[in-house]
């Protein structure tokens, strides 16, 4: 230990004046709002630029594209339902990443956890297809949750016991999950009688839907989990422990908490949430899984967690936004000819604006209401290694 003396503390900065609820809501929401608007503007610019590639400089193309987007998302009851159903896995996935943030962990592995959850539910669902619904549905859901949880447990345990940073291990596990799915679905889990490799029909394991629409049980579960997760994080002792470990792991140890255990528990819970997202998609929407099943839900979840500031309500709103965009993008590609990947670009730009948070705040002279979740500093601080016990 070198320098023994702590810095002479300067006199305290005065605390920020108590803001009204409205004031605080605006301050919190301002930057995400500007980020989305700004990203849409940047997206428009890109669309205009790419119209050049097709010969004509078309300034109205973005308007047409966004109009298609809106129409596809909200223009009809079917569209609205499609948006909600698309948002559902994003809510769960966003919470899977956001809960990790609260504990100072970066769960990029939501993708792999989602895939494993999908796999588990597809496998058990096919196996239990003949049983009555009361048995098959919960069994399939639980299988998805359990497998997702396991896929979260692995990086959690690695981080807690060896210090291996979750940023790298979870991404590796994403690839391994893909390989595992490829192997299992072309092998032991392959259902006979189809022209391509896929899991078997779900039969009674399919999620019931409501009002004859696409709204399936998974949607209700997801929306129901939002207040549940909020309550656990902000009102329970477990949530207090998770937040403390995220904010200051050293103080957490001093307070008698066990950061290692909490790391493992948190990532396992995150995995469970992402696994449920996967289960919902398979059991409620696609009803089977093929060997090359691919999805962007894992990465979207990261953006959603950041956009929603790791808070369940913010995440829900962000998920609805992204769900709507994905829902409408199909129509946009058909009608305006803009590749759906533009949504990825817009997403990235939203993140860019979020990161430039500080700059925006200074521009607008907004009060520094927690410019950036402090938990993120713990994510970066533990990057160099060392077990967190």
């Amino acid at each position: 230990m070198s320098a023994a003396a702590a810095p002479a503390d300067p006199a305290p900065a005065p605390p920020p004046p108590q803001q009204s609820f409205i004031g605080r809501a605006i301050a919190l929401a301002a930057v995400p709002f500007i980020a989305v608007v700004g990203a849409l503007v940047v997206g428009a610019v890109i669309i205009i630029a790419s119209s050049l590639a097709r010969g004509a400089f078309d300034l109205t193309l973005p308007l047409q594209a966004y109009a298609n987007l809106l129409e596809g998302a909200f223009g009809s009851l079917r569209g609205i339902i499609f948006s909600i159903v698309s948002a559902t896995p994003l809510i769960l996935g966003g919470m899977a990443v956001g809960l990790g943030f609260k504990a100072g962990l970066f769960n990029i592995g939501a993708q792999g956890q989602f895939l494993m959850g999908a796999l588990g539910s597809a496998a058990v669902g096919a196996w239990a297809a003949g049983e009555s619904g009361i048995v098959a549905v919960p069994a399939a859901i639980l299988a998805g949750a359990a497998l997702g949880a396991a896929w979260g447990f692995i990086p959690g345990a690695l981080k807690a016991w060896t210090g291996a940073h979750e940023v790298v291990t979870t991404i590796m596990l994403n690839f391994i999950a893909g390989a595992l799915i490829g192997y299992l679905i072309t092998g032991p889990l392959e259902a006979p009688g189809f022209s391509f490799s896929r899991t078997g029909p779900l039969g009674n394991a399919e999620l019931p839907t409501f009002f004859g629409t696409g709204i399936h049980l998974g949607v209700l579960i997801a929306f129901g989990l939002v207040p549940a997760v909020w309550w656990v994080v902000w009102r329970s002792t477990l949530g207090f422990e998770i937040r403390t470990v995220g904010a200051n792991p050293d103080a957490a140890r001093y307070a008698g908490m066990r950061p290692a255990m909490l790391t493992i528990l948190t990532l396992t819970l995150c995995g469970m949430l992402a696994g449920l997202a996967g289960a919902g998609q398979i059991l409620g929407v696609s009803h089977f899984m093929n060997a090359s099943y691919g999805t962007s839900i894992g990465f979207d979840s990261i953006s959603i967690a950041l956009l929603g500031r790791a808070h369940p309500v913010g995440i829900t709103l962000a998920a609805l936004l992204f769900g709507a965009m994905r829902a409408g993008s199909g129509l946009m590609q058909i009608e305006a000819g803009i590749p759906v990947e533009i949504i990825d670009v817009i997403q990235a730009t939203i993140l860019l604006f979020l990161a430039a948070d500080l700059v925006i705040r200074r521009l607008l002279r907004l009060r520094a209401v927690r410019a950036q979740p402090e938990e993120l500093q713990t994510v970066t601080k533990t990057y160099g290694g060392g077990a967190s016990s």
Partner: protein
Amino acid sequence: MEFVYSIPIIGVLFQFIGYVVEVTPGIAPIVVGLAAPIALGALCGIMNERSGIVNIGIEGMMLSAAFAGFLAAGLFQQAFGGEGWGPFGITPALVVGVIAAMLVAMVLSALHAWLSITVAADQIISGVIINVAALGLTGYLNRLLISPNPRLGAGTFGSFRLPPEVVDFPVVGWVIEMFVEQGPIAMSVVLFVVVLQILLFRSRWGLRTRAVGEHPRAADTVGINVIGLRYRNVILGGIFAGLAGAYLTLEATGSFQNNMTAGRGFIALAAVIFGRWTPVGAFGAALLFAYSGAFGQAVRIRPPGDEYPDLGAIMAAIPSQVYGALPYIVTIVILAGVVGRSIAPAAVGKPYQKEGKTA
């Protein structure tokens, strides 16, 4: 040998060693090629992290560079044509492609530097942004510009050819072949590794960089320009990421696929940690990871034959996807085993703020 192989249980281990020894010279040339992008990515990571900046956006930089390089080379070739020259078959288009790749990676590095240093945003988030943006933009532009043009492409660099006498040289012949029978980018990797290693530990730049990465305030108090040094190193590090991307589309294959980097940028990060933030160490780690990938291929092409009975049975029972996932599995195993004892530059990840100059 057969006697050794037939010892119960341990015999399998000997069979494995025997198989590895037999198969390695054959796959050695592939190994360096597979290692090249990882090693280059790791050099980029070292430039960043030794200066105190976490950069997990190397994957995105590689991907963008791969795309930009391919596109630039292809368009140039389409517009101006050109013939291959010299042992590497260099065409003007390919050169343009490499330059474009490096420039794109440097621009993304500048963005990361700005976000990390000036805006003081969380550095991991900045890396994530670059990855997501790269994936989205390259996918979008690929669909828009390249898919309609299936004939677009400038080909690849050729590999250097050694005279057969050198290759057949006993013992060392295949080692030389491994490193020298490569295209220009892969061959340059060893050079970069050696040069960077020397500079990092013996030059003034290296000393100042290490000081800035460990204790930026100490460096500041002796008059070193911490911010400037960090910006320069991060942007220069982009050159390596650019070369890694260029390698993928202009030397290894002659085409671009969505998300073709397949996690190499992250494996590069693991290589940095495993190599204790030294160029030579990271290169060794990259070779290890590449070997695991190449080994997987070897098993498929030349599975253990009758000389290795037990081994052959075991290996046949392992599904082929495992071999494909071997680099990722190896990465996790290594990270778990090594990281606990590996110490990063002390100030890595913390934005530096000059005392008294913050608002």
